[in-house]
């Protein structure tokens, strides 16, 4: 283990300060704000509403569409707005992470739109986005069987670090990248994985450790999400 002290002085199993708020966008059917320290995301849910074009409609159940984007001022160098390879991929995996919890069988031929915008980014934006979207869906009154919580766990220089920041994502030793960043999402009550993305290298033993660390962190996120939802009127 070469990475012994974290850049921002946190413990290895400690997350950044979490902030969650529900109902931040008055005109949306449901909305939420979620922040891991400097990583801040807002999510808005519209629907269920009519879906066009008609060939996308599913007569068995309603579908969801997820749109994820980082706002142009969210990073140090201006991000060109609009869909790109990265944001389309994250939209897709976010949709896959949220699909197991929602039950739209009462709303056939409709669509529920989820818009996630990152207003400030410092790593694990997709996790903040998923957390916000899960709360926004609940507030919109969508039938759901669970809530989703997501957190990124890094394997940085041989150590498992919960909730990585940008500096840790770019951690190098002798000019070689020594980090694996694992984004994970859990169904919070049933403790099932709904998203697991990994870039970098990791052995199976450490991956198991990382999953356990994420589970522990998600339990805290669940409490925060519940509290935020229950504080709305």
């Amino acid at each position: 283990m070469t990475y012994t002290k974290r850049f921002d002085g946190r413990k290895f199993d400690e997350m950044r300060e979490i902030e969650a708020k529900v109902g931040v966008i008055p005109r949306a059917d449901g909305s939420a704000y979620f922040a891991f320290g400097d990583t801040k995301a807002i999510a808005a849910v519209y629907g269920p509403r009519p879906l066009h074009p008609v060939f996308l409609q599913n007569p068995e159940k309603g579908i969801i569409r997820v749109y994820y984007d980082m706002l142009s001022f969210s990073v140090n160098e201006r991000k060109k707005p609009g869909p790109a390879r990265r944001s389309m991929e994250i939209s897709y995996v976010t949709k896959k992470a949220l699909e197991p919890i929602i039950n739209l069988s009462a709303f056939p031929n409709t669509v529920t739109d989820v818009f996630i915008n990152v207003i400030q980014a410092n790593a694990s934006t997709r996790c903040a986005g998923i957390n916000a979207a899960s709360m926004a869906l609940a507030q919109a009154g969508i039938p759901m069987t669970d809530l989703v919580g997501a957190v990124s766990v890094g394997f940085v220089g041989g150590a498992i670090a919960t909730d990585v920041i940008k500096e840790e994502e770019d951690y190098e030793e002798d000019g070689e990248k020594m980090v694996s960043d694992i984004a994970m999402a859990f169904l919070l009550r049933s403790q099932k994985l709904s998203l697991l993305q990994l870039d970098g290298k990791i052995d199976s033993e450490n991956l198991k450790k990382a999953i356990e660390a994420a589970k522990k962190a998600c339990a805290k996120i669940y409490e925060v999400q519940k509290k935020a939802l229950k504080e709305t009127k």
Partner: protein
Amino acid sequence: MEKDKQTMEESTENSKIIVEEKKRELVVPGEIVSSGSAFLPGENTQKEGDEIIATRFGLLDKEGRLVKVIPLSGIYLPRMGNIVIGKVEDITFNGWLMNINSPYKAFLPISECQGFIRKGEDLSTIFAIGDMVIAQVIAVKAKGVDLTTRDRGLHKIDNGLTMTINSSKVPRVIGKQGSMVSMIKQETGCNIVVGQNGVVWIRGDEIEKELLAKEAINLITEKSFTDGLTDKVQAFLESKRK
């Protein structure tokens, strides 16, 4: 200055009252509301193993052996027999397409329209685009609902004002056996029709009275699910009347 102080004191007093009020428990989706076989799952809950979980965000309500969740939000799903207030969006050769604040299209055919319509008559003389119409749901199909205006009290709205509230708050606005809405009617002297889709039509002889009724309905939607709401709204209306 003194006046400001006084209002400050008043507002803190009000907040105290709100804290003291008994509130039903809020539950989030996936939360376990009951375990074992003491309760049966009702609306917006489902059984998972030995436990009953909530499937929607709302207030927990235990009645007898039944446990259910009263939703606080969500869109309107039309049911047969519902009285709704819709807005004409399009006119086709055989009827009107209406927006009833639901994901499904609502169609009002000529055959379900009151009065005689001559062959080739311009349909916009009956209901034009943008008109608000009180109608009843007579059929719910896969791709939409059918409406009718062939009953008493179903007609075009040509005066007064309409407002939109969340459809899940409609039972609060109506109250038990219409107690809330009839109280507002009595206090303000306005005629009020509450559509199940959350559109409310208020008509009184003065605009001030209509706006007062609107304010009272907004108060109900904000403070729904607190005990003694009818008395509170009555007190509010009485204080405004003076």
